[in-house]
């Protein structure tokens, strides 16, 4: 917060903290000056991303692996997200220790759950329009 006040743009937008924040909002709740720290963090993250500054790329890779499945199916596809993340991050052994338990308990569906009646396509269009608009406005989607 001090960095923002002092206008240290590079230092703030390149910091790791932006990417390691869990968005739990405890800081906003407890701030004695009533600053909505979580909202500031989120805004800074948006600013950094739009300028192509991503200090902890694996976190962003996980987000896009998730959103890719939503774009395709309209709903999250958990195994698909994991597979895409492993490919993107080259960390092919992420959480393989959990696979036996998760599969035995049928915690993860093998088949994606698709939004019916054209809903998946409608969601695809939302993401497409978002990307096109970002491009028009000259920012990284």
């Amino acid at each position, binding site marked *: 917060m001090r960095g923002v006040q002092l206008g240290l743009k590079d230092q703030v937008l390149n910091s790791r903290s932006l990417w390691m924040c*869990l968005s739990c909002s405890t800081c*906003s709740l407890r701030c004695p000056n009533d600053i909505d720290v979580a909202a500031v963090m989120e805004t800074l993250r948006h600013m950094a991303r739009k300028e192509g500054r991503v200090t902890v790329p694996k976190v962003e*890779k996980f987000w896009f692996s998730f959103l890719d499945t939503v774009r395709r199916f309209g*709903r999250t596809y958990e195994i698909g997200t994991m597979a895409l993340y492993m490919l993107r991050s080259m960390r092919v052994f992420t959480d393989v220790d959990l696979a036996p*338990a*998760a599969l035995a308990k049928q915690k993860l*569906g093998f088949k994606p759950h698709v939004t019916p009646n054209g*809903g998946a396509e409608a969601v695809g269009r939302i993401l497409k329009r978002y990307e096109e608009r970002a491009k028009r406005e000259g920012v990284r*989607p």
Partner: protein
Amino acid sequence: MNFAYYPGCSAAGSSADYEMSTRAVCRALKIGLQEIPDWNCCGSTPAHAVDTELSAALCVRNLDLAARMDAATVVTPCPSCLSNLKHAGKRMENPAFRARVNELLDNPAAEKLPETTSVMQAIASCRTAADIAANVCKPLKGLKIAAYYGCLMSRPAGLMQFGDPENPTLMESLLSACGAEMVDFPLKTECCGASFGIPERPMTAVNSGRILEVAANMGVDAVAVACPLCQMNLDLRQKQAAKAVNVFFNMPVLYYTQLMGLAFGFDPRELGLHKLCVSADPLLQKLDALRREEALAEAKAKAAEGGNA
């Protein structure tokens, strides 16, 4: 009472047991859940972390569908979906924001979008503790439970309207009505590490480990949760969490609806208890033994009374 129902994606996958038990409990309490047709993912953390308008567009498509069902209120079991839907609904009150979101949608959103609330608050708003107790046929009396809410149910406080954001007590009220002994759990609103279990495992393992360690030290029989991601971090990832804090745990982590369902006399399979990674069998056995003893003592007392008469 009828609500438009938004199950959320994990209901079809990792939290199928939450979905089964939520529907069972609402059925027993005669609370109607009308699923929104063709609902889509709310975008969860990835969408709002990337862009606020993208996140809102994904949420508003669902709220718009619910508006077309003439629903006044949408309910969802998942705190992350709840937070996103509530944020989106609130932000749509700003005309400039609304216009930017409408640009992303196939058709502009309905002027009046429904309110969103959690299934837990919906139950408490239309059923009293006495209504709940009236459905209990197998009281949880004798079971010591820690209620764990995580981050998003109560924060940000102004938007979520969930009572004291550092000390919510709604889950305790519902489970006490079912007879459970609720401990005063100090870490009830601490973060479990959320979705960082995948890209940054140590952070999630330490956070979850701390929560489990305090619960275990308080001698509880189970931790009750309301969030699919918290449940996954505390249950599926319990071994990773144990390693991070160097303690061995064998702590069942149940959805509050599973505990209510047990009290209502549902079969454990109907509530998806077989899907828990840390088995709830010891808890079920303890509960059965407690109720058997009670019945035996009652029968003895009756027999003694009969003898005296």
